[in-house]
């Protein structure tokens, strides 16, 4: 039941959240791939076309220089600048060996000329205006230099356009992701919640609860159907157990009562001799013994069938143990034994105070009985965030290691010579599991250590 609110505090534990998260991740990856392709197909292709164009022009002009000398080159540059074709974006500069400008629209040669043989980006000035451009440098045979390039303005405009598009798309995707998280979560919660609600109540003992039909044909509706048929089966089994135990109870108890009453009538008869009376008393004692065994067994069976969980209420384990200790204090005193109890705060569990007290009393009783004169029994309650732990430890003779495992099984008795039926611990085990708890036995070196664990009830 701790998972109840867990998905709220630790979103990663919610399937809805994880699904939505993966869905969002997929969405973003798909988008990045798509956008990259678009980017390559637009900006990339344009850029490549531009660089090719610049290279071609620079080659053409170099050939022109080789064939016609500087004058032909200057003329060509002027013509290129004069025509309308790309004249807004094309960049030219022809300088002589002293770096004096002979022709072109750039004011001065770009910096770091050596790096421009294969073409690169540079910041330059064109007619007094600073621009960024792609430029190729060519050294000509007479020591003069030719720079051919292209303004990157359009490229950059395109670039920022596409980048803005990508950013916008990412923002949209993010909003979709967040929205998706909620929609997924809600959709899942809506489908799972009725199932969980029902199962929690069933676990609490309301075995007649069923998941409401959802009126859909999806996976959750199918799951709900499966769960309902499973619950039907469990209920049938449980009521079977109850019926059998009720019937056994009635059909055995009534005749047992009759026998006991008859025997008691007989024992009170004045004509009965002392020996006969002793036999009758023995028979009565035997039947009372039998009744006790029978009572315990039935109780174990019913506890195991979860018969009484409906009655559970939140209670402080500490006060239950305190009362039991108080109850046994007098017995401990008589046999010069010591009972010590320490408890942590806030040890609330769901349970039936009487059944819990009975189980704990049984353990304390055992500890005092087997510990003998002067034994020391220590009870301690500790709490963890979701459990309440009760340890009952004595310093008596304890139990041999290989027998520890058999403790708590029905009819198991360590010492056959003492009175008992081997049902006490078995009923403790049944009571603990009725309270959704766990019990374990360990050696306290010496003595026996019993550890009880119950789910902690948080208000």
């Amino acid at each position, binding site marked *: 039941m701790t998972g109840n609110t867990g998905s709220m505090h630790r979103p990663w534990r919610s399937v809805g959240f994880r699904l939505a998260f993966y869905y969002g991740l997929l969405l973003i990856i798909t988008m990045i791939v798509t956008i990259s392709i678009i980017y390559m197909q637009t900006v990339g292709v344009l850029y490549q076309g531009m660089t090719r164009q610049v290279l071609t022009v620079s080659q053409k002009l170099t050939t022109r220089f080789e064939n016609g000398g500087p004058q032909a080159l200057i003329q060509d540059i002027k013509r290129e600048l004069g025509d309308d074709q790309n004249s807004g974006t094309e960049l030219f500069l022809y300088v002589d060996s002293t770096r004096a400008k002979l022709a072109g629209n750039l004011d001065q040669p770009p910096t770091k000329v050596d790096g421009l043989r294969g073409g690169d980006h540079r910041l330059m000035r064109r007619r007094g205006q600073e621009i960024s451009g792609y430029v190729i440098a060519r050294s000509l045979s007479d020591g003069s230099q030719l720079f051919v390039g292209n303004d990157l303005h359009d490229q950059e405009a395109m670039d920022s356009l596409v980048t803005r598009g990508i950013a916008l798309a990412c923002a949209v995707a993010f909003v979709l992701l967040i929205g998706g998280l909620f929609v997924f979560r809600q959709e899942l919660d809506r489908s799972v919640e009725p199932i969980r609600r029902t199962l929690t109540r069933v676990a609490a003992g309301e075995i007649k609860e069923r998941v409401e039909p959802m009126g859909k044909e999806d996976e959750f509706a199918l799951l709900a159907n499966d769960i309902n048929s499973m619950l039907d089966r469990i209920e049938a089994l449980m009521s079977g157990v109850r019926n059998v135990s009720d019937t056994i109870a009635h059909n055995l108890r009534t005749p047992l009562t009759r026998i006991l009453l008859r025997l008691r009538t007989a024992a009170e008869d004045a004509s009965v001799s002392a020996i006969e009376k002793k036999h009758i008393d023995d028979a009565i004692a035997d039947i009372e013994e039998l*009744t006790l065994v029978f009572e315990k067994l*039935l*109780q174990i069976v019913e506890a195991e069938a979860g*018969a009484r969980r409906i009655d559970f209420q939140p209670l402080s384990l500490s006060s239950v143990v305190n009362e039991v200790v108080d*109850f046994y204090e*007098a017995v401990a005193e008589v046999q010069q034994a010591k009972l010590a109890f320490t408890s942590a705060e806030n040890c609330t569990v769901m349970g039936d105070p009487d059944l819990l007290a*009975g189980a704990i*009393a049984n353990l304390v009783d055992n500890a005092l009985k087997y510990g003998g004169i002067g034994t020391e029994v220590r009870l301690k309650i500790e709490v963890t965030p979701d459990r309440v732990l009760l340890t009952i430890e004595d310093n008596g003779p304890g139990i041999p290691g290989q027998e520890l495992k058999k403790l708590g099984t029905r009819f198991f008795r360590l010492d056959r010579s003492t009175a008992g039926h081997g049902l006490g611990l078995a009923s403790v085990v049944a009571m603990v599991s009725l309270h959704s708890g766990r019990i374990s036995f360990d050696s306290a070196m010496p003595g026996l250590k019993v550890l009880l664990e119950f789910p902690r009830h948080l208000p």
Partner: protein
Amino acid sequence: MKDAVGAWRCLVIEDDEENANYIARELQELGYQTQIGRDGPSGLQLASTANWDVIILDRMLPDEVDGLSILTTLRGLGNKTPVLVLSALSALDQRVRGLKAGGDDYLTKPFAISELAARTEALIRRSSSAAENRKLEIADLTLDLASRRVERAGRLITLQPREFRLLAYFMMNPDRVLTRTMLLEAVWDYRFDPQTNVIDVHVSRLRGKLEADGECPLIHTERGTGYRMTADLQSNRKK
């Protein structure tokens, strides 16, 4: 409500003839006037028409009648007669607890007749007793419920809270047999069966405090049954 002869009137609703007869016979010996109802309808008819001091009701009656439904019907009719329910069902049965809360008692089969007798009497006394007496007295022992003061012949006796409750329960039920289970239920509110003689130890401790000065005993052991508090050992002892 005792009749002309001064006997308590008890109705036994139980389908098992032998059990019913035995209970009736034993109660008669204790001075009750008894009548037996064999099934649900006749039991209900008897219960609602005549005036009873106590009704002993079996849970499992013929034709699947649950004794508790008779009890519910009776209460629905405004009948407040104390009812002792006999149950063959296990003590784990949750409905049994509701019973206790309703002021009635229950007993699981098989039971000792002395237990039945003690509980029946306690039920009658409880319903007929007047407003709770704040000051209880037996012989030279006095107990004040309000100030929680206990004195014997002028000597102050200091008791633990449980010992006080135990003594108060004894003093509220003078001259009556109280079984160990009755003490366990009334003083500790436990319904389980402690294996060792815890109750005996508590009673003997209480006795020790009451009779510290070698005074005469007030709490007497009833062999095989329980205890009885009485000022006079000679009278009131039945057997």
